């Protein structure tokens, strides 16, 4: 009866209750959706790190990570790999050579990590082969050509391998992509001219188009104007196992494009056998063994097992290699909790205010209820139930709205294209697919109920303090 009466009571003043419900709905939606976006971005980043950059577990010589000395290597790699492959939880294993060196073109040079890989084995562990930028070649597609390298898009830009040019084809493409005629006319002034790097191209564009048009169409013009000479040459220089400076001429086999500028600009993949030959490295020896597990949840237990199995080597999992990711992953839940608590605390004040008004408006009625025999416990419960109903009605509708919006955006994604550079500099994709687990919804429901209960305490105490005889005299 109390529950039924409480439910009916919240609809006495429909507009006021709807305003409270709407504010809770908007608050919950804002919180849940923001958490969904953050969670999606973090999950994407973690997937990206595991799938393209470090996998689940890496094994190295104990000193290799601190000094990158070629002499700090793993011997008898094939035996180790065979053993690890035999573990049920392991999906794939591969070994790598790892050399720090310089990448050079005629115009530019930059420091890079040169990673010697077996392209086929790597495909079982990493998804980087899928990240090939269309039109830039392939992922070690020509096995007869040893000198091919797979490099990042940002490195290609840094080495001036990617250039910028406005020509008839570009004009046609921009026209069909909807670029306004006046901008086309302006940029046509540079027809036939070639720019070595993004900076000089942007500078030229800014001289003919407005800042507003640049922010609207600059990215499109930049993308369409990129040119690339297939199999462009560059050299890699490094120190071999005898501490002699050496190197080789390589050709860009393909360019990968991932949402991590730092990785893109620093990692060059070449075939294991050519790097081994260039650094004069013995067979059956490697710097790194990378392991992909069938289930990411086995990471901790497998790390422990491998540490026991290979005490002379360093076994690190992805959380240990990238502690920032681990922190994000581990504390994301806590951060979301804090975030929601702050939002709910703000909403609680609105609910307290409303419930206080409810009590003040119903002093006479509450006096009558006490007079006819409704004890204080029941009065308290009724006010509390009303408050919980108000919070829950808003909370549930907020969660339904959030769920629908997250469902829609989780398949389409949200494109923060205008902030792409910033996102990618931090290693995040600018196209985010919001995602939230059912457990988060359950926690939010619980938090809403707690908010409702806490918000009702003060107004309910006010109701308890009423003297029925005095309350009945109230007009």
């Amino acid at each position, binding site marked *: *009866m109390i529950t*039924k*009466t409480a439910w*009916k*009571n919240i*609809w*006495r003043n429909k507009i006021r209750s709807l305003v409270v419900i709407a504010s809770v709905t908007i608050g919950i939606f804002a919180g849940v959706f923001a958490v969904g976006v953050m969670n999606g971005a973090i999950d994407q980043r973690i997937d990206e790190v595991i799938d393209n950059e470090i996998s689940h577990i890496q094994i190295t010589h104990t000193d290799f990570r601190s000094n990158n000395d070629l002499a700090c290597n793993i011997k008898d790699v094939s035996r180790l790999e065979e053993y690890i492959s035999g573990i049920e939880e392991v999906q794939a294993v591969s070994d790598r050579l790892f050399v720090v060196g310089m990448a050079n073109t005629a115009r530019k040079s930059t420091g890079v990590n040169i990673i010697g890989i077996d392209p086929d084995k790597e495909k079982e562990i990493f998804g980087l082969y899928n990240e090939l930028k269309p039109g830039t070649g392939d992922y070690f597609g020509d096995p007869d050509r040893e000198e091919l390298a797979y490099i990042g898009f940002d490195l290609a830009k840094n080495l001036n391998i990617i250039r910028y040019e406005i020509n008839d084809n570009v004009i046609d493409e921009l026209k069909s992509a909807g670029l306004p005629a006046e901008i086309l006319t302006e940029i046509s002034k540079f027809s036939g001219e070639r720019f070595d790097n993004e900076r000089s191209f942007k500078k030229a564009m800014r001289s003919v188009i407005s800042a507003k048009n640049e922010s609207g169409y600059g990215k499109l013009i930049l993308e369409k104007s990129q040119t690339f000479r297939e199999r462009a040459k560059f050299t890699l220089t490094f120190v071999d196992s005898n501490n002699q400076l050496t190197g080789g001429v390589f050709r860009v086999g393909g360019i990968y494009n991932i949402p991590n500028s730092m990785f893109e600009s620093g990692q060059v993949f070449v075939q294991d056998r050519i790097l081994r030959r260039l650094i004069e490295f013995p067979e059956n020896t490697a710097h790194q063994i990378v392991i992909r597990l069938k289930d990411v949840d086995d990471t901790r237990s497998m790390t422990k097992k491998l540490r026991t199995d290979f005490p002379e080597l360093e076994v690190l999992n992805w959380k240990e290699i990238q502690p920032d990711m681990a922190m994000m992953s581990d504390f994301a839940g806590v951060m979301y909790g804090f975030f929601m608590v702050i939002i709910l605390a703000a909403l609680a004040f609105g609910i307290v205010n409303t419930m206080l008004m409810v009590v003040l408006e119903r002093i*006479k*009625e509450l006096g*009558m*209820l*006490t*007079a*006819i*025999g*409704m*004890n*204080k416990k*029941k009065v308290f419960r009724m006010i509390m139930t009303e408050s919980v109903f108000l919070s829950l009605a808003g909370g549930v509708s907020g969660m339904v709205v959030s769920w629908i919006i997250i469902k829609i955006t989780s398949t389409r994604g949200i494109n923060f294209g205008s902030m792409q550079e910033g996102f990618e500099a931090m290693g995040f994709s600018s196209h985010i697919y919001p995602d939230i687990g059912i457990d988060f919804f359950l926690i939010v429901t619980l938090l809403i109920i707690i908010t409702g209960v806490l918000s009702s305490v003060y107004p309910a105490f006010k109701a308890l303090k009423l003297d*029925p*005889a005095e309350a*009945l005299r109230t007009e």
Partner: protein
Amino acid sequence: MKVLELNNVHKVYNTTHIEVHAVNDVSLNFEEGEFAAIVGPSGSGKTTLLNMIGGLDMPTEGRILVNDTDLSTLKSSAIIDFRMRNIGFVFQSYNLIPVLTAKENIEFIMNLQKWSRKKRDERTMELLKAVGLEDRINSRPAQLSGGQQQRVAVARALASKPRFVLADEPTANLDTKSTETLLDIMEKLNRDENITFIFSTHDARVVKKARRVITLEDGKVVSDKTRR
């Protein structure tokens, strides 16, 4: 059988400068089945006396015994429970719960007393029939006239078969016809259910119907007349 006994009851309100004797040395007894009116001018202490009889207020001095239970010995939570089981209230401004239907308003106390659904339904229908509102069972207070609302309030007061009903100016907001109907209903219920009714009023129509009339002046009983 005596249902209510007031022994030398005083109620003094302390204002900033003076003491106000709202009820001054009142001693009264009420028997089961009485239909009594407490009359007197405004400020004579009618409502204060009724509030003390109903346990909503405590006397400064003296004792009030309901069925031999001294109300002043009960804790505040026990008094509420005692009220629920023994006393029915009818208020001047009806005081129904606006979001509940006539039926739900009447059932409210039975619900608090955890009556079974069957028992509740039977009693509610019996009372709605008695007050002539069986066709307005699902109407909310706002859909009823003042007279009809007060009839629902009477039915609510009688719902849990209390020892007595206290009605504070029950006809003050009603027109002549509604007053007559309400008084007839209360008189009939008093007779049929043998429940004591005590009114505070200055409505001559109520006084005319009452079988006992107690007159208060300045908090004192100045006359107590019983009619046959």
